């Protein structure tokens, strides 16, 4: 498999028809997602309140023009009509929103929605929200968006939002590896049903979630009421959020690597190529901004297991702070191991 360090990201077309305005990763972008359709993934265990949250969001001005894709094996409560609709049929909701249920092929459903919008057969939509099955491991869905050959050239995952029930979520997180994975991979964690969960339930739930995912933003929603921006704001805008180290019984942990000096791209790329090839399944999610030697703006990097998103360079840094910062969520890979690898590669290059 060709790696990051090889010609794929020293785009040959850039060398053949170079533009002085382009960086080594192509056109510099105003924002990480560029022109791609923004996607929010809402996940969470059965009955946690995903649909309630989503229904409330769809009625807000910010939710207008949202296309919902329900990746669900059972019935959904997003709209009474949809309980009766057949799979892969797109139905209009209120407030300019649409909904499609897919029980089989998420990629196909997403591509079809974009094609039908292009043909004028669907009303215009400005974002997609995917509501996953309660049993879903978000990793395969994230991988779906990782590469251009899949959906990565058309869609961009702005945020993974995991919904957790304050009343029963604590027990669920104890016994369900899927539930823990949903929490660990989240950019934002929304605690629901705090009104019925009892005294202290919220803070206990928050503590449990923070132990699993110290970097995620933790929010509360009663009856689905949540600032709509928490579902639409890209998670990359949280680059300055503090992330402490965490590990727990699955061997899953998170840590942040920071660098104060510009990094040679070849060092980062070869290190990550090595990690993906040797330990791909254990690189659950890696995301961050790099100050790459020779680049004007920050380079956004993202990896899901053995798949690397194409790096994108932004037009400029938001402020004077040019520190590289990459968050790693891994299984049985320590921060020291990754640092040692980078050091070894740097000496070798």
């Amino acid at each position, binding site marked *: 498999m060709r790696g990051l360090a090889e010609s794929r990201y020293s*785009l040959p*077309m*850039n060398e053949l*028809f*170079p*533009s*002085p*305005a*382009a960086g080594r990763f*192509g*056109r510099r972008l*105003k924002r990480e997602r*560029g*022109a791609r359709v923004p996607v929010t993934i809402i996940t969470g265990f059965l009955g946690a309140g995903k649909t309630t949250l989503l229904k409330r969001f769809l009625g807000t001005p910010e939710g207008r023009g949202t296309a919902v894709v329900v990746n669900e094996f059972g019935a959904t409560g997003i709209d009474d009509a949809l309980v009766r609709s057949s799979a*892969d*049929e*797109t*139905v*209009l909701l209120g407030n300019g929103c*649409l909904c*499609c249920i897919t029980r089989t092929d998420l990629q196909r459903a997403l591509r*079809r929605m974009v094609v*039908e*919008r*292009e*043909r*004028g*057969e*669907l*009303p*215009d939509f*400005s974002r997609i929200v995917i509501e996953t099955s309660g049993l879903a491991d978000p990793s395969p869905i994230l991988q779906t968006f990782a590469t251009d050959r899949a959906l990565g*050239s058309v869609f961009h995952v702005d945020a993974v939002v995991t919904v957790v029930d304050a009343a029963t979520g604590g027990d669920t997180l104890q016994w369900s590896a899927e539930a823990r994975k949903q929490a660990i991979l989240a950019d934002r964690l929304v605690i629901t049903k705090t009104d019925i969960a009892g005294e202290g339930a919220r803070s206990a739930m928050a503590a449990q979630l923070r132990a699993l995912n110290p970097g995620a933003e933790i929010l509360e929603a009663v009856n689905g009421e949540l600032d709509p921006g928490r579902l639409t704001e890209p998670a990359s805008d949280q680059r300055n959020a503090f992330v402490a180290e965490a590990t727990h019984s699955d061997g899953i942990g998170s840590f942040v690597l920071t660098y104060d000096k510009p990094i040679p791209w070849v060092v980062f790329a070869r290190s990550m190529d090595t990690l993906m090839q040797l330990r791909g399944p254990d690189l659950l999610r890696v995301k961050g901004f790099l100050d790459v030697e020779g680049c004007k703006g920050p380079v956004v990097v993202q990896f899901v297991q053995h798949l690397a998103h194409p790096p994108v360079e932004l037009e400029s840094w938001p402020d004077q702070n040019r520190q590289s910062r990459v968050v790693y969520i891994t299984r049985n890979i320590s921060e020291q191991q990754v640092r040692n690898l980078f050091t070894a590669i740097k000496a070798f290059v």
Partner: protein
Amino acid sequence: MSTASNPLNKSAEPTTWNFKLLAQNDLGGFGGMGEGMSVQIAKDGRRIIWLAHESAPKNFTAVDVSDPRQPKVVVQTDLPKPYMRSNSLELSGDIMAVAYQTQKVNQQPAGLELFDVSVPEKPRSISFFDCSGPTSRGVHQLWFCDGEYVHMASGSPDFKPSHPNDDQFYRCIDVRNPAKPVEVGRWWMPGTSATDNIAPPPRHPLDKGYRAHNTNVYPQRPDRLYLCYIDGGMFVMDIKDKTNPKVISHWTNSPPYTGFMHTAVPLFDRGLMLVTDESTENAGKDWPKLIWILDARDEKNLVPIATCPMPPLDAYANRGGRFGAHNIHENAAVPTAWQSDQIVIGTFFNGGLRAYDISNPYQPKEVAAFVPPPPKGTPAGAVQLNDVFVDERQIVYTVDRHTGGLYTLEVDF
């Protein structure tokens, strides 16, 4: 196949993707716009866009777009005759050149007029360069960026075409003294003058003529003219000696395509060239009319390498009016024009306004689209976006050919 129900015609949903519409102004009910768009920074600091109308009764309209959310008409002028159209204009500083074409040969006035627009409310005519004649319809298109020369597609009283459709050719007019414009050079495609010793070119099926259209010249290569010649394809011309333009190379896609090569925009730093065709028939009859990307590293051997992907024919052809390429933002060499060699923004009549990322020129990717609803009162049944200009703030101005007037948008990608 999805069976989404919707309150509108199934195949006529408006689209706004990665553009943000700021405003629309129907220009006082005279919203039929041509392909002349140029932005001036007036002496008082206002930003004024000058727009040529597609046909009579109006000549040009100036719109204050200092706040693109609130465009305001500053002045709107009339053509003296109903058989005239202006259609094309350009500004250099405070001097504006306007093209006048007539419906038939031998009508007047037909030619080039220069205006002083230093007081936008009161455009003052400086001079008129007459191009009328027994075989001339006047000027169709002009290019004027350097304040010195107007490069134009025009007839003249002393040119007799070998075929009546071939009545306009390239003329270079020295306007360094704007009060006394003087022709310094001309060129026509061999065979199109009745005086040529070679056979006229064979007619294309739609026969829009072997005649000049866009005549672009850029400061990066002031000795080069990028000349599109409608059914004749496009020519790279050496105009170092303006009195004697010479062909460097020629490229055409027709046949088998249906002619009407419209605009050529070189991307000098990248060795590429953008070339557009114009759709001139309703209901997609002349499909496909495309934006072409050429490898122009060797100007003597232009190689087409890609086209910008079009929306689906069956989804747009029958919406009303034309569907296909026409104009693009041309990176005009003026301070108020956005410059980009990675993004192409073009108009496609009922296909709306579309932007393409050509970072990889072999695989252009559409990154934005704007297809507004049919403008009120349009005879076409759909929008017919006709031209586009992007200013240095990346505010996008696009105009409808019939009634919609001016739309202002922000880039959101």
